[in-house]
């Protein structure tokens, strides 16, 4: 066998910085000015009020949190989603998370877990300040939109 003939096709990069277009959920290479940040109030390590007026959609929430091109939770967490075989083992599994946390607790965890544990590895999904050398196309933008956060929360609450 010659080296030239030896060829292996491999799965795409897992932390892929590039983004796939066409998924309604994907925040493809972001366009236009970043949407204004929704203000929120923290009460006892929770954010009690939803970030939007539109109630969360659990099906969309599942697509949000498994979206490989936008910092999916699966990079670090295992989740009870058998059709997603590659699941990280950096962080606690999210099985049963909906029984252990309330919506208000999950909201702070997703918005900015560093307010609970400053040294945590978990990204803040709704934060723009206090970051270093953010890539130009992401400057002033949150990883998730306010609606993504709300949809993700109601999906996580189904994981009993």
């Amino acid at each position, binding site marked *: 066998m010659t080296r030239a003939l030896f060829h292996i096709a491999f*799965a795409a990069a897992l932390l892929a*910085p590039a983004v796939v277009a066409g998924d309604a959920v994907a925040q493809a290479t972001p366009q236009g000015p970043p949407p204004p940040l929704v203000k929120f109030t923290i009460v006892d390590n929770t954010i009690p009020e939803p970030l939007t007026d539109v109630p969360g959609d659990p099906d969309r929430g599942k697509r949000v949190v498994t979206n490989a091109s936008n910092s999916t939770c699966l990079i670090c967490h295992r989740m009870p989603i058998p059709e997603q075989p590659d699941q990280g083992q950096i962080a606690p599994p999210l099985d049963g998370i909906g029984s252990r946390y309330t919506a208000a607790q999950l909201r702070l965890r997703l918005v900015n877990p560093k307010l609970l544990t400053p040294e945590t590895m978990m990204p803040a999904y709704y934060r723009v300040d206090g*970051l270093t050398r953010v890539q130009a196309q992401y400057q002033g933008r949150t990883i998730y939109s306010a609606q993504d956060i709300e949809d993700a929360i109601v999906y996580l609450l189904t994981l009993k």
Partner: protein
Amino acid sequence: MNRSAAFLVALGLTLLLSGIARAQGWPIERYQVEDRKSGYFYLGQQTRVLQDDDFLNPGMSAVDQGAGLWRKVEGSEGKSCSSCHANAAQTMKGVAARYPVFDAKSGGIINLELVINRERVEKMGAAPYKYESPELLAITAYIATQSRGLPKVVEITGPAAPFFEQGKEFFFVRRGQIDLSCAMCHDDRPGVLLRGDTISQGQTNEFPMYRLIWHTISSTHRMFEWCNASMRAEPYALGSPEYLALELYVAWRGRGLPIETPGVRK
């Protein structure tokens, strides 16, 4: 020992020696020095086999190309690398193992890629290769292969010290929208699954390295760029002072690991 036995021993030795020249695949203990482990350690068997056998190793075509470029006359002086350095197996042995180094002329850190380009400009009167061009990767890989098995040991004291500190600081700063430091993955979590990838210690003893997902041989700086972009952090330019300082620090983290060029990684 009778004559046929002596012949068999001689034949065995010849095969063994040529085997060493054409393959890696050392015993696994060689890929670790104290608590420092080559990325080879974290590879699956299939990928290891690809690196072990030079006939399968997809990085070897770049090495072969590099051997040709080594002898190719270019530039106004009518010279090739081999005009001055003759037999690379002797003259280049150990060179890749001690780079990057402090360079008095520029007052900063210089790596193998940039030294090659400087030689082209100053000694050959030829144009520098573009960073990450197939040519620069090929000749860098060819030179690094001459140090196979030698321990990577870089100088971090004296004038190199402030650059070492700069690279070290880089390694620990959280960056990008995802807000992670190199250390959070490569110091704190080697061996842990990040989705389908096993995080390694982020060592550089096998560069230039063939990355299967890229289908090409690649430099340390391209890897730094990828890790930075994965965190949605603005990467620095390939060959920039920031990445040169980082390259020095990361090389020191893997001190003593054997040169494995061309490594194969996922």
